[in-house]
């Protein structure tokens, strides 16, 4: 398995984002890397700031493009002052998710996302429950049970950018809750 790279970059975070977004647009690498904070990764922000004596930005890049990205960061022209503090290898990413919806359309959207996961991504420990209770149909004032409920929880794990894409798709659907993305670093 080719590993993703996590770059921990010291410098002004807004300048890093602006510079690398410009780089991505100019070199056609928009889909090759993501900013950890934007993509919903758990970065341990305070611990990292203390460890690196200031602001750091985490960028996660796929294996084929990590050398180009590293070079671009190192070659950032003045006035930029970026310093790669760490470069870690990521094996895989994961995040727990859960949902509970009384809306059938939303349920279909959730099923569609979980039924067509990107290559290298799977839903582990996934346990959906679909309950229909005809006696709860219609408006109720004091016992508002829903006629239909689709609920479930699980963990999305696997290929890093696939996990990011899946989290983004789930977060766009109401009634779903996704934890931050955590990563397993390679030894």
């Amino acid at each position, binding site marked *: 398995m080719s590993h993703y790279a996590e770059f921990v970059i010291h410098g002004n975070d807004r300048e890093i984002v602006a510079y690398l977004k410009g780089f991505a647009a100019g070199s056609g690498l928009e889909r090759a890397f993501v900013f950890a904070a934007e993509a919903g990764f758990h970065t341990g922000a305070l611990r990292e700031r203390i460890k690196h004596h200031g602001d750091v930005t985490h960028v996660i890049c796929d294996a084929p493009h990590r050398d180009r990205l590293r070079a671009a960061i190192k070659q950032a022209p003045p006035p930029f002052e970026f310093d790669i503090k760490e470069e870690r290898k990521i094996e895989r990413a994961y995040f727990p998710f859960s949902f509970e*919806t*009384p*809306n059938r*359309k*939303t349920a279909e959207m959730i099923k569609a996302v979980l039924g067509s996961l990107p290559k290298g991504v799977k839903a582990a420990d996934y346990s959906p429950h679909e309950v229909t*209770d005809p*006696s*709860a*149909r*219609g*408006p*109720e*004032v*004091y*016992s*508002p*049970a*829903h*006629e*239909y409920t689709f609920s479930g929880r699980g963990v999305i794990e696997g290929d890093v950018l696939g996990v990011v894409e899946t989290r983004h798709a789930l977060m766009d659907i*109401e*009634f779903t809750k996704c934890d931050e993305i955590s990563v397993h670093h390679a030894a």
Partner: protein
Amino acid sequence: MTAAVEHSLGATLAVWWTLPFAGMLLSIALFPLFAPRWWHHHYPKVALAWALVLAVPFLIEHRGEAAHEIAHVLLADYVPFIVLLWALYTVSSGILLTGTLKGAPGQNVLILASGTLLASWIGTTGASMVLIRPLLRAISWRKHRAHTVVFFIFLVSNIGGSLTPLGDPPLFLGFLHHVPFFWTLHLAPATLFLAVPLLTLFYLLDRRYYRREEAKSRGTAEVMGIRGWHNFLYLAGIVGAVLLSGVWRIGETHILGVELKIEGLVRDALLVVLGVLSLKTTSVGVHRANQFSWGPIREVAILFAGIFVTIIPALAILKAGEHGALRSLIALADSSRSYFWLTGGLSSFLDNAPTYLTFFNAALGDLLPNLPEVEAVPQLIAMHHHYLHAISCGAVFMGANTYIGNAPNFMVKSIAEEAGIEMPSFFGYIFKYSIPILIPLFLLATFVFFD
């Protein structure tokens, strides 16, 4: 029963006699939150259990007095209360708003303002039922929708019901206890004081979201219309019947030893006739489109049977004033401001109808002890109207503070969720909306309207 007997019973009851009432109200508040499916299937048994927990020892201990009190509360309070709610629910279910608005901020304000006005005439539950689905259709394409439903709960499901006894159950209970029908119009300045800033704030908030949302996804409008127009005539009939019972004096009769006013019985009979006429003359299509069923009124009938039975000791103790076991509660309520916040605070978490009745009796017990209610209420209005004003405002307005403050709140939340809107959680509603928006307005209202 005479005031003296009521007074003596209230003075002898210990505070623990109110525990079944507290249990009943807490069951209504907590089970839908923590065990909704279980509650949906078992609430009649819970209501019956609490009623029996009170009635059995009460009858054993106080025999004839207890039997009379139970018969009195069921015949003089419960039956007229349920008959009115049934008639309003049946007639409002025959009114269908068709078509779709575009969900633009100005139009949403129009729906909220119309609902606020309508709620006083067809009840907060009726207005919520008639208007929530057209509102949800209008905003179906919008990305930010939950705030619209929350403001709907504030205005249509609660605050709007303040102008007549038809608007909100607490006010009808007041009417049954000799508060004149049009007295509630005194609440109009306070209602406007809250409704205008809320509508303005909603407009600004909704406009901000609207401008951020993509123009390409905007919905298209369909011609609006109303089906079941003739139900407005029945609605006028309901208003007339209730008014009639307030001004027409025929006499009294006795059923099971309980004195009942004949004009009240005539009113109830007219309400039943109007409800049946509505059922017979409204098309099946209108009822189907409104998802009409007897479910909601059945819930109200069952749960309020439990409430009305278990509330008996609490009301008797409160009527005993400083001679009763709840003298410390009465001591807390020493100004109209404290009545506003005590009634409102409890109405936020318990059903507002029994809460109103509790503080209504606390005020009578405190300010006019030992007077029969029929004499005490006109004196309360003449000499201490600001107390009744505060109790009424607290009960009606502060039901909006939580999902469990007033019956339609949960109904609206549930319908919105089934339409695909993720509503705030119980605490999300309180911390994101009630505390920052409603509480400051209520504080301002306290200084403007009460002393």
